[in-house]
């Protein structure tokens, strides 16, 4: 959207609130919901991508070296990546610690 959502009047909404551009969820940053965040132990990581595949928010990205990390603006700290990790290389660090 071309401006913050709280600035739209009812007259400015699209017909039936149709979204005419893809990727609008990118504007909604859910990172501050998080109470913990995942940390990858690269010594034990197989670079298999299971964490990336299972992340429900597409908040995990592949680094240039082929490892994985989280996107701080979007990761909610839900714990699914750690649960699904084949080798158990993902642990969680409480926020603010």
């Amino acid at each position: 959207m071309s401006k913050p959502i709280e600035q739209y009047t009812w007259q400015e909404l699209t017909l039936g609130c149709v979204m005419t551009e893809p990727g609008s969820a990118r504007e909604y940053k859910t990172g501050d919901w998080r109470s913990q965040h995942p940390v990858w132990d690269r010594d034990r990581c197989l670079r298999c991508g299971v964490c990336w595949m299972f992340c429900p928010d597409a908040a995990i990205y592949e680094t240039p070296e082929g490892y994985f990390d989280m996107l701080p603006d979007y990761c909610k700290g839900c714990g699914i990546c750690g649960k699904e990790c084949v080798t158990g290389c993902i642990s969680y660090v409480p926020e603010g610690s």
Partner: protein
Amino acid sequence: MGKREGMEVSIAVSHAVQLARAEVIAAYPITPQTHIVEHLSSLVANGELDAEYITVESEHSALSACLGSMATGARTYTATSSQGLALMHEIVFIAPAMRLPLVMSVANRALSAPLSIWNDHSDIMGERDAGWVQIFVENGQEAFDHTVCAFKIAEDHRVLLPTIVNLDGFILSHVVEAIEMVDQATVDRFLPPYQPLINLNPKKPVTMGGFAMPELYTEAKMAHQMALAGSYDTIVEVWKEWGDLTGRHYKPVETYQTQGAKVLLLTMGSLGEIAELAVDDLRAKGEAVGLVKLRLWRPFPFADFRAAVADAELIVVIDRALSVGGPGGPVMAEIRNALYPLDKRPQVMGYIAGLGGRDVPPGELIQVVKQAKAGGPAVAGREFQMVGLRE
């Protein structure tokens, strides 16, 4: 003038859908709507209507399929009744909010329990606030006419809202009437193919039915409210065009013998014709009684209604549904609400009649008017009267 044909009203409605060249029909049969969709499935199977007929496992799926087809830009139709409409409930609210302009006939029927297949307006009152254009018809000819008009209203770019045509189950749906048909060329001129403003198209992808944060939901509701309230002008315009073509003119609020009437009966649906007989009888006896019939239920025609009852002292509203534990009939409650802001307003009395298929002969309405004029029976703790109630 078109050809007059004797036929069951349900069949006439399906012919109206055929003449409107519906492209997709998704429906599940339920009494007393069954004959409409049964006949449409025959028309499609016999190649008389070039449409996709989707057989589904429930009404929830029927309306869901309609939303999908409407989203692609196909002219879409469904019909239901009673428990079927109740099963659709979740999707009934989604269709108008997504501005998907399908047309649905509701053959009005009571809701369980106790199980009843017969007519009243309980089913549609549960969907009152969903945000569709809602029309009530009085006879078979109106059922035919308004089915065709509904497509033009719904699909108009100033409206783009789904439209329900309410016809009383059995009383209209299963009755054989002489109905004046309109030829295909006339309907084609009146109703050109649907041109969606936005649709699902791989060349220009969009997301429909997305998520709204609290910052946007309120604005989305207001946009819907303004669209539905604003559809009034188009509805009147479409009915005028239909009237010019066919000679059959329709108004949001119809009046009968209201000149000089201090007492007005108010009805919705097929009861209007019965009430006309009651008014004729009372007028013959010199009583200044008239009749107001609400054709357009949503958007509620506030201005027309207030003008129609401006000189009345007493309005007797006959509801075909009961808001249990509330003010009585839902129509009566809205009538009172519409009058409340006025300085000079008539008294409003609520009567409930014809529940679950109970017949309402004209004599009963004559008694109602007599009773209401005398101040109504005093029943402690009751805001309304039940016509013909044994107690």
